[in-house]
Structure formats: structure tokens, C-alpha cells
């Protein structure tokens, strides 16, 4: 019996994009070879085109109303559900991360564990960020005045090129925790953990289109996203200096909110800046009226 199992030919997975809650191939029909750190073939990943990028923006925009309108508690539960689903597929991700980044099993495990914990961290943020970032303003007049953070909209996310999973989760989760929807470009050389994450998100009650994951050449996919008039923000983490500058120039065309790349240390306390980079502050005024001098003294 066991001999039979050992000789069994394994079933390869066809890695696909994750767009609008579905798993399409690239519309271009193109793929590229993904290898492990030693150059051994792992899989053919979709080589996304400009059209794939635009389709992903359409899906993200369509999902924005529902996701940003969901209660913060609901978003928190869904992000927590992502952690639960990942926990169950932990071994798969440890293997993929180890292959992608050339890490030992224990080092890859640490990365995956930290990534799962990061979902939990952001699950807890969904219904706290508004109190931390907003509040009542004591204006000098008879007005109720309240500032509230709101999501910016559709955010293009260039996932880090090195940290294929912990880095990936560290840039996606803060964007969607606050109600944005995301078009994510997986790390160019190691996209497999990102594409597998799509399968987890699809089974975590996350509405389709909230996160869309594309693999391929970062520069080729990022250029149409940076110039896209229906994208509201862009996280340039996965861009080198030259590409980042080009994209920032393109992003100025509709004044996208830009998070510039930095040498991030993903094991450190994430702070709040990745959330606040894609939040707008809305301030609402309303007159309070007055009861007059005869108002109750209680």
C-alpha cells in the first residue's frame, strides 16, 4: 500500500489569477516559469497583461461599495476567518515559502506563523481605527463636528519582491482592513504563495473583488494601474527606485495616494501607517441648536 503511494504521480496545481472572486488565467494566454531559489522549475504562473490589470480594477471597484459599507465588525470577522483558513493550510504555505525564498522549514514556518498572526492583528483593527484616527472636534460655536476616517477606494498594491508571504500579507491586510479594495501584484519571481493566498481568500467569506491578485512582470502590470483613472491609491513597496519614480509620476495624474517604497522589516510592529496611507478623513458639521436659557439644568 505504502509503496504504491510513494510511487504515485502527484497532481500538479495550475496556478491561476484571483480576480473578482474567480480564478481566471491571464486573458493573454501567457505564462512564465517560476523556479525555486536554486532554479528548479516549480510551476507556470500566469503572465498578466494590461487587460488583466484593467479587469481587476473593474472587479475591485464593483466590490468597493459593499466592502466599505460593511460593518467594521463584519470586516474584522472576515479577516479573522482568513487567519483560520490559513492555519488549516499552514503546511502548504510553509512548503511554498520555503521553495520561493530558499528558507529552511523552520524559518519558513516562522514567516507563515507571523503572516497568520498579522491577519489576526488587522482583524482587530477594523473596528478600532475610526476611534483612534477620528473623533469629535471642539469647534468654537454651536456645532456638532465629527471627523471619521473612510477608505480611499481602489488601491493598487505592489507586493514586496523578497518577502513572498509575510511581506505580501503585511501590505494587503492593512489596505482591506479599513474598507479599501485591492489589486495586488505578486512578487515577480515568487508569486506562488500569493496565488495560493487567493484560494484561501476565496474560502474566507471575503466578497469577490475585494482582493484581486495578479502575477507577472511588476513593471508591466503596475504601469496601467498607476495611470488608471479609477484607481485611488498605490502602494509602491514592490517597486525599485526607478520604477517607483515613474509610477509616482503617472499616479499624479489623478492624484492617487502614494505609499513610497521603503526597506520594510516585516517582523517589526506594523504600526498604523499602512492603514492611514489609504484613509481619507471626512468631517461632518451640524448645528446643535439651543434650548435657550430655560433649558433643563439637569
Amino acid at each position, binding site marked *: 500500500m505504502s509503496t504504491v503511494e510513494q510511487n504515485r504521480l502527484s497532481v500538479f496545481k495550475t496556478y491561476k489569477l484571483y480576480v473578482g472572486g474567480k480564478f481566471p488565467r491571464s486573458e493573454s494566454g501567457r505564462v512564465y516559469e517560476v523556479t525555486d531559489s536554486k532554479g528548479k522549475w516549480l510551476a507556470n504562473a500566469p503572465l498578466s497583461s494590461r487587460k488583466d490589470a484593467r479587469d481587476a480594477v473593474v472587479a475591485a471597484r464593483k466590490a468597493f461599495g459593499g466592502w466599505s459599507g460593511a460593518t467594521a465588525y463584519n470586516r474584522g470577522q472576515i479577516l479573522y476567518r482568513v487567519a483560520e483558513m490559513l492555519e488549516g493550510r499552514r503546511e502548504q504555505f510553509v512548503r511554498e515559502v520555503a521553495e520561493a525564498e530558499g528558507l529552511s522549514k523552520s524559518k519558513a514556518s516562522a514567516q507563515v506563523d507571523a503572516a497568520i498572526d498579522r491577519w489576526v492583528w488587522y482583524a482587530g483593527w477594523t473596528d478600532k481605527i475610526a476611534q483612534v484616527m477620528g473623533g469629535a472636534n471642539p469647534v468654537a460655536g454651536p456645532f456638532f*463636528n465629527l471627523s471619521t476616517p473612510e477608505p480611499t477606494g481602489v488601491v493598487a498594491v505592489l507586493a514586496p519582491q523578497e518577502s513572498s508571504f509575510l511581506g505580501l500579507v503585511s501590505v494587503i491586510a492593512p489596505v482591506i482592513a479599513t474598507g479599501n479594495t485591492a489589486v495586488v501584484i505578486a512578487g515577480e519571481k515568487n508569486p506562488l504563495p500569493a496565488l495560493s493566498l487567493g484560494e484561501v481568500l476565496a474560502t474566507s467569506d471575503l466578497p469577490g473583488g475585494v482582493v484581486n491578485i495578479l502575477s507577472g512582470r511588476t513593471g508591466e502590470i503596475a504601469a496601467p494601474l498607476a495611470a488608471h483613472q479609477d484607481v485611488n491609491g498605490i502602494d509602491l513597496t514592490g517597486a525599485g527606485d526607478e520604477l517607483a519614480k515613474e509610477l509616482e509620476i503617472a499616479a499624479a495624474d489623478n492624484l492617487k495616494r502614494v505609499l513610497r517604497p521603503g526597506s520594510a522589516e516585516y517582523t517589526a510592529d506594523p504600526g498604523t501607517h499602512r492603514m492611514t496611507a489609504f484613509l481619507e478623513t471626512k468631517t461632518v458639521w451640524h448645528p446643535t441648536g439651543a434650548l435657550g436659557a430655560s433649558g433643563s439644568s439637569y
Partner: protein
Amino acid sequence: MTTETTPAGPFAYAPAPESRAVVDIAPSYGLFIDGEFTESSGQDRAKTLSPATEEVLAEYTQANAEDVDRAVKAARKAFEKWSALPGAERAKYLFRIARIIQERSRELAVLETLDNGKPIRETRDADLPLVAAHFFYYAGWADKLDHAGYGRNPRPLGVAGQVIPWNFPLLMLAWKIAPALATGNTVVLKPAETTPLSALFFADICRQAGLPRGVVNIVTGDGRTGEALVSHPGVDKVAFTGSTAVGKAIARRIAGTDKRVTLELGGKGANIVFDDAPVDQAVEGIVNGIFFNQGQVCCAGSRLLVQESIQDELLDSLKRRLATLRLGDPLDKNTDIGAINSAEQLARITALADTGEAEGAERWSAPCELPSAGYWFAPTLFTGVTQAHTVARDEIFGPVLSVLSFRTPDEAVAKANNSQYGLSAGIWTEKGSRMLAVASKLRAGVVWANTFNKFDPTSPFGGYKESGFGREGGRHGLEAYLAPATPKGER
């Protein structure tokens, strides 16, 4: 009652001019760099006019790149000591400035009215009180930054290059300089080319307050000076208020640098009136929304969205009210509508209004006599406007209101959000749940419900979408001038 009354007749007012004697304008101004007025290395001079009379008020300096460099270096030199000063000491300088502004507020109000053309009623009752309040507010933050939610011991950015517009010259200066100084930055500020005087007077206030040399530098000039400033490699932070086109150019210019930027740009605010709104109050709000400061306000309520069932009634009331507005001498205490700031702006407003007419919208202007000298535009509204009309899409930045109608709240929200801009919006309804539902759906940074054009130093102000990014005012306003607490290496 649909008959229109003219401002003459029962509403004729005797002239009540505010005295000019309280302000002493020098014939010529240099640049305020490193604590003193200095001459430019070049010969370029410009003149600033009173837009109400076209009288030349003063000559000022067109600063060149060399002058800007000198100012940035002075600010850099001052930064070390200023940022190391205990917050409580920086606070006291800002409190001094706030108090001196209060003391000199009449002088500054008259000066601002002369240079800008806006009514003295507004400079006296809105601009100047808000300027003093803004400095007073941020003064109090200087020694409390640890508690502001930006991490412990948050650090200033360095030298802030600030470029401000002509519509609220001294107020925009306050919005820029007060938070920058409170957080320990030093500044080089460029006022607008048509309204440089109040910033130059502010230099004198810095002198009276004993502010250390180089902490505030004022360079005057046109867009060339502004470009030299935002492009200067010694500038760590760019803060700009002005047009969306220039804002985009700045965003492109600083791409790939370490410079941080906040932009407060244009708007095309929707003022939504539901059928249950108190009509008289709504009319006052509409007038305040678009004719305050001659409509030269980025957050103006320049698109009126009125529910179809009350459109006729509301427009009758609105026209009746507009006919009573008094347009004329900005120094007259009874004046409601002052002069347009410049010939250039008047030409732009005129061209856009003509486009509105050419595209088929129906034009109505309040019956009022325009003075023969100066730059004037009668309060105007367009009816029969669709979302495709230029006057419904482009920021006019003048006293021109476009009227559109809607049937359902959903339609109102969709039309309000159908804009590249997202700075302000207004909602008029007596129903609280409807107000809150609509407010939550509007993609705008400031929503005024049953009021309009209210400002306060504690209240964050700034836009969504192409109205810019970053907030000015309140705790939020500190963020633009502080290095964020982030993991090592990240900005």
C-alpha cells in the same frame, strides 16, 4: 411674491467705509529672509493692486532661484535650534503671534481687504478671527506632541516650503505656518503674486514676537518663485494650496524624492437641498456657500442640487435674496460682495460663464450696478444645467452657481459624487437619519449639514480625490509636519 427688488429704493444705504488710516503700506517691499528684509539678487519687481480700484498699493520683489536658495538655507540653519527648543518655548512664541494678530487685527483686516478685494465684513469677522485662533490652537500643541497619537517624541521634518493662494491670504498662511512651527519645522512661505502684502506684514509680527531668525522666511513672486521653492533640494516638506493643475505638477515634480507633500486643491462642492429643508435657512446657506468671498473659495457650494418638487419655490426665494446683496466698495461695512481678485481671474470667470450660456444653460444675474473701475462680477446662477455642462464640472472660482435637480436621495448622491473633486458638500434636510445617510455616502472631506462654509482650527479640512490629500486643522493637521512613527527604514 416673485417681484424682484433692486438694492436701491427701500434698501439704499449710506456709505459706511472702514478707515484706511489704520494701515501703513510701504511703497516697496523686499524679501523677509533670516529675520530681516533684504533685497533680491536680481532686479525683478512686481506691483500689487487693489482689485476694487486698480490702484497700485505697493511694489514687491519677484524672488529668483538664488533668493529662494538663500531663504531655504536660512530656514535650514534655524531648524537645528528651533526643533531642539522645548515645545513649551515654541508654544509661547506662537501664543505671542496669536495675541499680536488679535491686537493688530483691524489693521490686517483693512490691509487684506485692500489687497484682496473681499469685503471688510469678511476679513474682520471671518479671516482675522480664524487666523488668530489657528495660531492659538497650534501653539497649545507644541508641548503636547507626545500625546497626539503619532508615536512618542515625534520628529519634525525639517524645512517646509509652503505656497499659498490669494483667496484667503493670511488665513492660508496661518494654516500653513502654525502647525509647521508648532511641530518644530522652519518655513519658507510664498504668498500669491496678487496678494503678497499680509504675508509681508506677518514678517513684522514675527519680528515683534521675537521669533528667532530664519524660522519664518517670506519670499514673494509668481509661479516661478513657487517652482523654485518646491523643487529646492533643501526643502523636506511641500505644502501647497491652489489649483488642481499646479497640485498635480507638484506631485510629479517631487516624485522619486524624499519630500513629503500635502495638497489642498480645487473643488466643485454640491449643496443638496431636500424637499423638507427649511427654505429660508437653505437660501442663506446657498448664498453663503457660493457668494462668500465672491465664490473664490475652493470649498464653495458651486453646484446646487435641489429636489425637483421644491425647485421653483427655492429658486424664487434665492433670486429674491440675491437681488438684495450689496456689491461694491469692499471697505464699506455694508458690502456683501466685493471685487474679484484680479483681471486674470475675472477673465476666467467671464469665459466660463460665457461657456455656460453657449452650452445652453440659462443665465440669471442679480440686478446690480458694477463699479466702473476694478474687477467685478455680479452674482450669477445657471439653471437648466446638466451634469455634462462645463459649468457643472469645472471649478469656476467665482460668484457663479449651477443649479441641477434630483428626485431621490440616491440620485442626489450619485450626482454630488460625479466630480473629479471631493472637497466639500452641503446637505439641507430636517430629517436626521437622511442627513447622516447622505453624509456617509458623499465622497467629500468636509460635509456641512444645515450650514455651510464653517471653519475652525480644531476641525480637519481637506479633500478626497483630485481635491488633494492631507488635512489642515485639528490633531490631523499635525501629521503633515511630523515624521511618521514607522518600522525602521520606512517612510
